């Protein structure tokens, strides 16, 4: 027992590393049950008529890309299958080309066209204030250009969509890693303009967002990596998230085991 109390934490790091490496080599393919939150987003997109505009807020940076990239991939794939059109916008300058590279790849795969099926406004400074301006005039808030600096008048999609408002935008999904993010969309766009929204959340923020799912203000929520795996299951294309869930499962199991072991040691050595 003494040896466990004095255990060098580097042994724990090593076990975590081995566990994560094992599933990369030998996937476990554990079953994932779809939760109503993820189903809510899926159903909303599924019921949108072809040609509807889906607004995606890519408000995250590289740190949480491991969780949110698989969510974004699954949602965009679903949207392209349903022939929806997409506008992307980020309030986070650290978003860079993370989301764009994903959508660009799927755009080619589904033989869609930039400007008609997707326009990326890129990063525009101003945060919440600029988001509010988006609800009045897309052109003004985006300084009239997309991420490449090309005029929004060049693209059929942004010639038609004048603002982040009804009837132009049918549904919003924000993928936030913090503020500004989904809570700002909810307060400024959904509550004021009535455009329905959902959220693709990192696991750490799921507890914060639950209240808005229950109130019906979010039509659904994709919770973390597990949510991404659920969405991949729903669209019938298991991918990165389903594979990564194996690693998360083993790591969670190991953490659970350590919690129990730590407490057994604590109670057995308490009086000594």
């Amino acid at each position, binding site marked *: 027992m003494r040896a466990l109390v004095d*255990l060098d*934490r580097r042994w*724990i*790091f090593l076990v*975590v*590393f081995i566990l*994560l490496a094992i599933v990369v080599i030998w996937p476990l393919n*554990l*079953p994932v*049950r779809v*939760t109503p939150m993820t189903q809510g987003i899926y159903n909303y997109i599924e019921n949108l008529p072809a040609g509807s505009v889906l607004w995606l807020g890519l408000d995250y*940076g*590289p*740190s*949480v*890309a*491991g969780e949110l990239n698989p969510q974004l991939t699954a949602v965009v794939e679903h949207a392209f299958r349903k022939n929806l059109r997409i506008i992307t916008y980020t309030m986070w*300058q*650290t978003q*860079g*080309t*993370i989301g764009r590279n994903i959508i660009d790849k799927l755009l080619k795969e589904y033989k869609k066209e930039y400007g008609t099926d997707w326009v990326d406004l*890129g*990063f525009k*400074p*101003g*945060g919440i*204030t*600029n988001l*509010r*301006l988006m609800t*009045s*005039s897309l052109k*003004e808030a985006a300084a009239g250009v997309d*991420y*490449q600096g090309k005029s929004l008048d060049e693209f059929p999609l942004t010639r038609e969509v004048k603002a982040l408002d009804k009837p132009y935008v049918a549904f919003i999904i924000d993928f936030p890693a913090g503020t500004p993010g989904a809570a700002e969309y909810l307060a400024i766009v959904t509550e*004021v303009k009535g455009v329905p929204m959902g959220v693709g959340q990192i696991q750490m923020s*799921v*507890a*914060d967002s*639950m*209240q808005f799912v*229950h109130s019906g203000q979010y039509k659904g929520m994709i919770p*973390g990596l*597990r949510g991404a795996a659920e969405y991949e299951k729903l669209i019938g294309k298991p991918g990165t998230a389903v594979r990564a*869930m194996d690693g*998360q*499962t083993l790591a*969670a*199991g*190991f*953490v*659970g085991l*350590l*919690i129990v*072991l*730590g*407490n057994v040691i*604590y*109670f057995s050595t308490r009086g000594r």
Partner: protein
Amino acid sequence: MRKELPTIICILMAVVVVVSMYFYVPNEKWKLMDMFDNWYNLLYYLAMGLGLINLTRIHVMAVVKRRPNWVYSIWLVLFMWAYFILAMIQTVDGPQADWVFQNFLTPIDSTVFALLAFYITSASFRAFRARTLEATLMLLTAFIVLLGTSPLGDLIIPGWTTAKDWILSVPNTGGQRGIQIGIYLGGLAAALRVMLGLERAYLGGAR
């Protein structure tokens, strides 16, 4: 007028923003809010520029005066200006600027965040103890939610995810709402103090 004028401007701006957010004002007829938003954006750009100059000044002084860890200041100034100039020449989406982002910032950011998994695992072994009733409740909750976020919970006991969902939906939602309402009421009170000119700390100290 050093304090009165900024206070009057603040009150006027606050009234316009509050009226436009709390009452329906057709935007086509009243473009004032859009104008303010544009002003804010302009100030944002200016603040970024000011930050760049200020950061350079602080770190150049750190190097000149050989303050502790001054070597890092050289790296900061060097990378900041190199990337700034590169982005000015070809925009942040240019091939080289994007290469720097993809190959420097992205792996560093991801790695730092990924390291959390190792530290949390180690901390769970050393710090998560059922010492008191409150600590025990927190421990049990964390244990259920942790295993519930992966398929493992349902594999151990069928219905584990349901227990996790209940914790998130009932006690968590109730607690979150209570905290949020408190925060927003506090924020509203603070905003009212600024709008009424009672709170003037943002104007800076008196000389």
